């Protein structure tokens, strides 16, 4: 059958118009579907005609005692509202309410969206507490369940620190073992520490020059172990000074340190058989103010021109000022601190420096007493333990990460658990 050209064109036009009509109809239908879908989605949040933005409450609200404290805290945890977990969250936040001993609930805290826990630090052991949370949107509030009544409890032992206790016990036993060993006459070796070897020489120099010895025990109080270590060394230094009939002066920045230092020097002079040579004026309080103290000590240094300066203890920003002034007056300087930030200044400006642990080892080294030497040996056992554990831990984590060996992952995790910061 042959079809004329005009008939063909009409057919094409009719087909095109039909296609356009179908496309228009399809577009309208899909737009309606999207609208109806959108309205059905919105209906999850908004009650038609009311305008309320509905939100779901939090779930699984639990109040429990905060473990290993003095009975001063309760821990709350919950799963946030399901609406809070959406990208376009309608939840504006939470209000936490607390009722004490069954009384009227009062608002305790207002929490931002996304919060899932709270630590109540304002509780007392003898009271009972109940909590609930309100989830609120722009214009709607919904309440969670109310928790069971709970009282905080006091724990006598912090079991989280069980491993810390075992490590402390291990080191303590090692110290006691070596102390007992030393007491029985077993000779314990301690390597030479250059700064301490120089003490006698430094005091001797001061005696020969007829100039005094200046001792600075840091600027911290008696609650710092570095101050205690400094005073232990002071005992030995002042004994040598008493033996040599030299002079010592010691300006301090803490009243308690003054008292302890006077006791220490007095004991040394008595042990040297020269109690008459002791005077309370050897130790004098200046001020607690850091730089006021430094100004006074610097002035003393340039006026008294000590032959020997001991800078032992806890130092801060004043370390370089003191060490440089001591250096400028030509004194032989022996310094020591456990503060890493100040050690570089002492190393740069002093003749001998006791680095960190050496300051604490000094008392044992100088006294040679079995008890102190045993303690030093016990601490070395602790260092040996640290080295062994580090090597084991590094091996475990290296093998675990490089070759994915499960047992090594377990070893690494176990070591991390034992040596955690709890």
């Amino acid at each position, binding site marked *: 059958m042959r079809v004329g050209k005009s008939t063909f064109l009409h057919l094409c036009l009719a087909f095109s118009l039909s296609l356009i009509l179908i496309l228009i109809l399809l577009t309208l239908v899909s737009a309606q579907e999207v609208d109806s879908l959108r309205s059905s989605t919105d209906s999850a949040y908004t009650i038609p005609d009311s305008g309320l933005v509905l939100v779901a409450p939090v779930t699984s609200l639990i109040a429990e005692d905060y473990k290993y404290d003095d009975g001063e805290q309760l821990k709350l945890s919950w799963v946030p509202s399901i609406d809070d977990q959406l990208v376009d969250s309608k939840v504006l936040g939470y209000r936490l309410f607390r009722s004490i001993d069954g009384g009227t609930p009062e608002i305790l805290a207002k929490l931002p969206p996304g919060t899932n826990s709270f630590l109540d630090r304002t509780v007392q052991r003898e009271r009972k507490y109940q909590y609930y949370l309100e989830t609120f949107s722009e214009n709607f509030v919904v309440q969670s369940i109310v928790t069971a009544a709970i009282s905080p409890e006091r724990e006598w032992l912090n079991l989280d620190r069980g491993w810390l206790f075992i490590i402390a016990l291990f080191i303590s036993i090692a110290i006691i073992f070596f102390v007992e060993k030393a007491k029985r006459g077993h000779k314990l070796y301690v390597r030479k520490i250059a700064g301490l070897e120089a003490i006698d020489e430094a005091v001797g120099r001061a005696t020969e020059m007829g100039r005094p010895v200046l001792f600075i025990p840091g600027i911290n109080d008696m609650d710092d172990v570095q101050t205690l270590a400094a005073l232990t060394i002071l005992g030995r230094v002042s004994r040598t000074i008493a033996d040599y009939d030299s002079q010592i002066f010691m300006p301090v920045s803490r009243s308690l340190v003054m008292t302890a230092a006077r006791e220490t020097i007095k004991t040394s002079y008595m042990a040297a058989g020269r109690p008459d040579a002791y005077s309370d004026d050897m130790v004098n309080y200046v001020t607690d103010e850091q730089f006021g103290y430094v100004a006074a000590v610097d002035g003393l240094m340039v006026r008294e021109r000590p032959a020997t300066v001991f800078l032992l203890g806890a130092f801060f920003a004043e370390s370089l000022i003191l060490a440089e002034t001591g250096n400028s007056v030509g004194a032989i300087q022996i310094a020591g601190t456990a503060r890493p930030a100040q050690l570089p200044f002492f190393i740069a400006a002093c003749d001998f420096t006791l680095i960190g642990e*050496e300051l604490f080892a000094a008392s044992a080294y100088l006294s040679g007493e079995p008890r102190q030497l045993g303690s030093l040996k016990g601490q070395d056992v602790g260092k040996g333990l640290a080295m062994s554990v580090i090597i084991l831990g590094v091996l475990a984590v290296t093998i675990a990460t490089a070759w994915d060996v499960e047992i090594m992952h377990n070893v690494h995790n176990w070591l991390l658990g034992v040596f955690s910061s709890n």
Partner: protein
Amino acid sequence: MNRSTYILTAIVVLLFIVSWTLKAVSLSGEVDDNITRGFLITISAFLTLAIFSFLYKDNPFYKFAEHLFVGVSAAFWMCQGFWSTLVGNLFPRLSEGLSNFFMVPYQYSPYNITYWIPVILGLLLLMRLSSKAGWLSRWPLAFIVGTTAGLNFIRYLRSDFVVQVSSTFVPLLGNESHPWTGIGDFFSHLSLSASGQFMMILANWIIFLGVICGLIYFFFSKEHKGVFGFASRIGIWVLMITFGASFGYTVMGRISLLVGRLTFLFRDWLEIIS
């Protein structure tokens, strides 16, 4: 004091008065209390210069600033100790009468009786003033030393031992971001980029060996010779390099303090810079 010192002192006093006057005049349009402000800025500047003069040598102006600083600060700390420790913490827990007297709120607690312990220890410390009962002052000292040692044992065991040990557990071949895929891959992708695998491995080896060698240096009960001595020498090198870096870092901080003082002198006092 000799004649030249008197003359110098007179000149400095004159300069102070001139400076104070000029400063007060320059502040007259800006603040109401221009005379007081002028005095405070001038005295601050002169005391700063007096302390700086120690860089030349010890002199009466430095002595004046030193004694003023020591005297004022000693008095301040004594007052601070009395008002914050005794009045602020102790009296409100001891007696309602004392609290009322010092106008601080009484803080009742059934455990307040424990606050008599520091009172007794404090009084025992004052026994030092007595020649006969002076020995009693050793008891509070023994208490302080004992509690300090006990408390610090656990504190340092945690921060300086346990935490340091676990922080040194570093992988020596690779980690999650740079997994170890064999020696061939390692060398074929060798890069000196700071975030690359080579630098990560190098850093971890330095941490590991640095800590072990540092610990060996602080090992006192064995002579440092042979392999032990070699490791100990590496340990002290690691420490010295660390101290060098720390020195530079801290000096930069001190320079900023100096800049702060110079800024005060040139901007607030002399108004040379804006």
